[in-house]
Every structure is written in structure tokens, then in C-alpha cells.
């Protein structure tokens, strides 16, 4: 994106025929992601007549609406009014968030690209496991595939580019890394990111009562376990792989 002066944000633009996008920044940052989550929550609470759906990406809120009920001018005016009521970049994270601790095996044949990622970050494998395993990351957005979180930010040492080649397939529960973020895969998929960890955490179970485990704003830590312990956990707890959640006090 071309560079914008700070005053350009938040920015309201149309999306296709029946959508609007409120963008808080053109690069990922803590405050802009915070603003995104808070603003979407506000829109959901407002329940504007004619709004059909809202969703967040890393730094934007998307609003799909029925222009026969709520036309573009009125929605735009309403969004501008709402944006001006407070400093969205300073808002608290939404309540009802959870903190997940997810047993993760780093490296081994189950996550074969740890060594390569550690090397690219200038660390030994042991240092990489310490660094990644102690990081507490947040669900910045959910997307691309059902229930699948983008998690971050990791420290600047993990600002690794995507691979030029795709890894043909990583399994469900794979923890992959690029550009200071993890993605935890909800299904087996090809990826251009590096497969550094493997979890047994099934974050999307379409047949279950609660098909989506995670919500934007939830926090996660991928705690290192041995390969043997991981396999035992996966067997005894097929859905969660030993992942446990606690409420984060508001």
C-alpha cells in the first residue's frame, strides 16, 4: 500500500457493492489490532438495522449490509460518528477472552522446519524453543480457513519472510511461523510458512456443539513438551491434545 500520513486513519472505504471497510492502519501493530477488535465489538453491540455481518482482519473491520435498508451514505455517516466518539487505539481488549496453554512438540520429524527457522533467526534450536515456547501471543484475526488464527506478534527476531516454495502439506494442528506471526492450522494444507511445532489442538470441529475453539482476542502459549508426551496427549485427548483454557479477567 502507498504510505499514508497518520491522519488518514481510521479510513472508511467501500468493499464491492454491499460492504464497507474501516481500516485502522496499513501495517500490523498492537494498537491497531486492539482498535479493530474494540470497534467490531461496538458495532455488534449497536446492532444497526441493515447490517448483515461484521468481521475483522488484522487491522480492519468489514461490514456487510443490505443497501435497501441502510444506504451507503447513512452507514458511512454512522461509522464516522462512531469513530469520533473515542480513541479506538487506546481501547481495552474485549471481555470474555481466554488464555489457552497448548502442549506443543517443537522440531523432530513432527515439525521438521524448526532448525531452519532457528537458523534464520540466529539461534540454536534450544534457544528457539525457549523463545517460541515462552511467547504469549494473541489471536490477531481468524481467517483464510475455518477457525484458523493468526497469532502474534512475536519478537522482531522472528520477522522471517515466507518461503519462496510451498511446503506441499502440513498436518492439522501444525504451528507455522513467518513475519512475526504463528498460524495454527485447522486442517491439512500446503503453506509458504515454516512448520516449527505440532499440536494436537483441533480448533475447528464442524460436527461439535462449539465448532470454533478460538475467538479473536484470545491468548495462547505453545508450551514445549517432549515428542513422547505429545503422542500420549494426542491419544488420550483427541480433540484438544491437552490444551486447556482459563478466562482472562477483564
Amino acid at each position, binding site marked *: 500500500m502507498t504510505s499514508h500520513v497518520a491522519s488518514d486513519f481510521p479510513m472508511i472505504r467501500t468493499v464491492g457493492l454491499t460492504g464497507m471497510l474501516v481500516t485502522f492502519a496499513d501495517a500490523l501493530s498492537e494498537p491497531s489490532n486492539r482498535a479493530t477488535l474494540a470497534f467490531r465489538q461496538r458495532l455488534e453491540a449497536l446492532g444497526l438495522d441493515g447490517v448483515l455481518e461484521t468481521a475483522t482482519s488484522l487491522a480492519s473491520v468489514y461490514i456487510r449490509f443490505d443497501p435497501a435498508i441502510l444506504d451507503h451514505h447513512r452507514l458511512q455517516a454512522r461509522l464516522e460518528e462512531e469513530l469520533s466518539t473515542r480513541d479506538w487505539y487506546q481501547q481495552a481488549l474485549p471481555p470474555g477472552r481466554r488464555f489457552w496453554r497448548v502442549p506443543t512438540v517443537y522440531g523432530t520429524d513432527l515439525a521438521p522446519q524448526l532448525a531452519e527457522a532457528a537458523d534464520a533467526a540466529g539461534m540454536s534450536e534450544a534457544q528457539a524453543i525457549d523463545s517460541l515456547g515462552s511467547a504469549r501471543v494473541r489471536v490477531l484475526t*481468524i481467517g483464510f480457513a475455518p477457525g484458523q488464527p493468526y497469532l502474534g506478534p512475536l519478537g522482531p527476531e522472528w520477522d522471517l519472510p515466507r518461503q519462496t516454495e510451498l511446503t506441499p502439506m502440513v498436518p492439522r494442528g501444525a504451528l507455522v511461523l513467518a513475519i512475526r506471526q504463528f498460524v495454527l492450522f485447522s486442517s491439512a494444507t500446503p503453506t509458504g510458512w515454516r512448520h516449527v511445532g505440532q499440536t494436537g489442538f483441533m480448533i475447528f470441529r464442524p460436527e461439535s456443539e462449539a465448532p470454533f475453539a478460538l475467538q479473536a482476542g484470545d491468548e495462547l502459549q505453545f508450551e514445549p513438551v517432549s515428542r513422547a508426551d505429545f503422542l500420549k496427549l494426542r491419544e488420550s485427548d483427541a480433540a484438544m491434545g491437552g490444551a486447556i483454557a482459563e478466562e482472562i479477567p477483564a
Partner: protein
Amino acid sequence: MNALKVLKIGPAASVQDGGRPGLLDQGVSRGGAADVLALAEGAALLRQDPGLAALEMGGMGGTFEATAPLRIALTGAPMAATLDGAALAWNASHRIEAGQRLDIGPARRGVYGYLHLGGGIDTEPVLGSRSAHVAAGLGRAVAVGDLLPAGPDAPGETGLTLAAEDRFQGGELRIVESFQSALFPPDVRNRFAETEFTRGSRANRMGVEMLSDGEGFAAAGQLNILSEVIVPGDVQMTGDGKPFVLLREAQTTGGYPRIGTVLPCDLPKVAQAQAGASIRFRWVSLEEGLQIQDAYDRALRALPGDCHPLLRDPADIQDLLSYQLVSGAVSALADPFATGGDT
């Protein structure tokens, strides 16, 4: 249970309805029928709710046997269809009896043909829809041996037909500017609209590739864009500036920039374009786009009133002699010594 048993089936057949709106924030794109107009046409022909599910057949049909009397309708890409060997009109509704065999061949034009059942296909909904969304891990392709159960169907009329809009050979797609259009310089946007594209060979329910001679259509700063929401109709430029028109089963977010968004009413034309079909894009203003879509939505609601009885000119009926035109008359071709029952 009233059902169709699947005896033979093409590789790209799946149950589809209007999809799963409202799960974008959970990373689930809406999905649903590739040609929603065909869904509405089938519902109109059977006098039922357009939200009911039908069988979508990509490129190739199948062979089915009815376990009980059923009403059916055939819409979308025209395919050769026969019932126990007798030709069936496309874009029409028919009654079939228990044990009768329905054969649907390859698409003669277009890509996606639809087989509708009176009462809809009544498979178990998952997350509010019966649509298979294979990329999302929801449902699967229909396979030999499957039963397609029909929902409750009131005895209703059949033998209706509808003049179908020809959307099977490409043509003009109307497109509005969207939030990333300004990333493409004006001369690139103009050249995009002046270019004649053909539908490439890479096409599925997620998106359709557009090929053209000459240079690609690149955005400024293309590789540094944050991933943003994707909506159906978005025309995404890949790294080498080649356009893909994204359909309702595309991923929910993406980092490739999008030059604009094709109007929803023109998306059946994208999904149904055969490889090699010629396609052009025409920019319309947001205001104009809203009017075009509104008129289309009204036409869709009026479809039930556009259905009329399927009257055939006897000269066109190849199986005329199998019709009992006068009660008790004897066919000139019938074997007078046949004892009947096993014709």
C-alpha cells in the same frame, strides 16, 4: 423415504444451497451454489423455497434411480437428460416414478448443471447449510451409492418450463471499484477494461482464471499489503498480475490486491464460462451497480410467474410413437404379439 439413488456420478458433484452467510469472522466463506440463478430457477419450476438444496453437477451428470415418485427440475448448464431412455427437456420440471432411471450426460454448454428435487435435497445441515464446502472441511463430493433424500413435498405440478438467461459462454462482466482499486494506476484500470480475456483452465468453485495477451495488471507496492477481507466477485491479481475472479468458496482473507468486484448478478456467468470463453470487464459506478443488482434481484423474485407449461410441438417429439395419444389406440410399431409388462 423418497430419494434418488446415485448409480453413476461425475467427479465434481455436490449438494449445494445458498451457503453459510455470517461465518466470515470465523474464517468460513459463504460457499453455496456456483450458479445461484440456477437455484432460483429450479425453485421456481417446482414452486418451492429457493433456500432448498439441489445437486450441483460440474461438467458431467450421473445416473440416478428413484426409490419413490418424485418431482424433479433440471437447470443451469444444459446437459443431455433422459428418463428410462426418453429425452427430458432441460430448464423444466418433471415427474418420475419409483424405479425409473434418470440419466444426465456431460454439459453441452457451460459448466454447472443442477438437479432439483421437490422438497429439496434433505441431507443433514452442518453449521446451518447443506452445502458441501470441501476446502473448509465441510461435507464431500457425492459418490456412487449415496442416497439423495427428498424433503417433504406437497403433490405439486410438473411440466413447467422457464426461458433461461444464456450465461454459459462468457460475455461482459460489470465491475465496481473496491477498497484496493486505487492501488492500480488509472491507466492499468483502463487497460483492464479494454482487454479481451479468455477463461483459463484453472477454475473451480473458489475462483476462475482469466488469460490475456500482453503484460499483467500490477498494483503499486503489491507485495507489502496486509491481508484483507475477500468478497465474492473480487478480481484478485496474483504475483504476476494475472486476474482471478473469486467465487463464493474463496478463502475469507487474502494478501493479493484486488482491482475491483464483479457484481453478484454477473457471477453465474463467471462460474458457467467454459474454458476458452471470451470475457470482458466493464467498470460501472457504485450507483449504477446498485441499480443493476436491484433490477436483477426483482427479476429473480418474479421467476415463479415466468414459468409456463412445457408445450411441445409434436414435430419435435422424437418419441411421439411411445405416447398414448388416444386411449386404446394401438401403436403401428408395437409388436401385436407382445404380452406386455416388460417393455
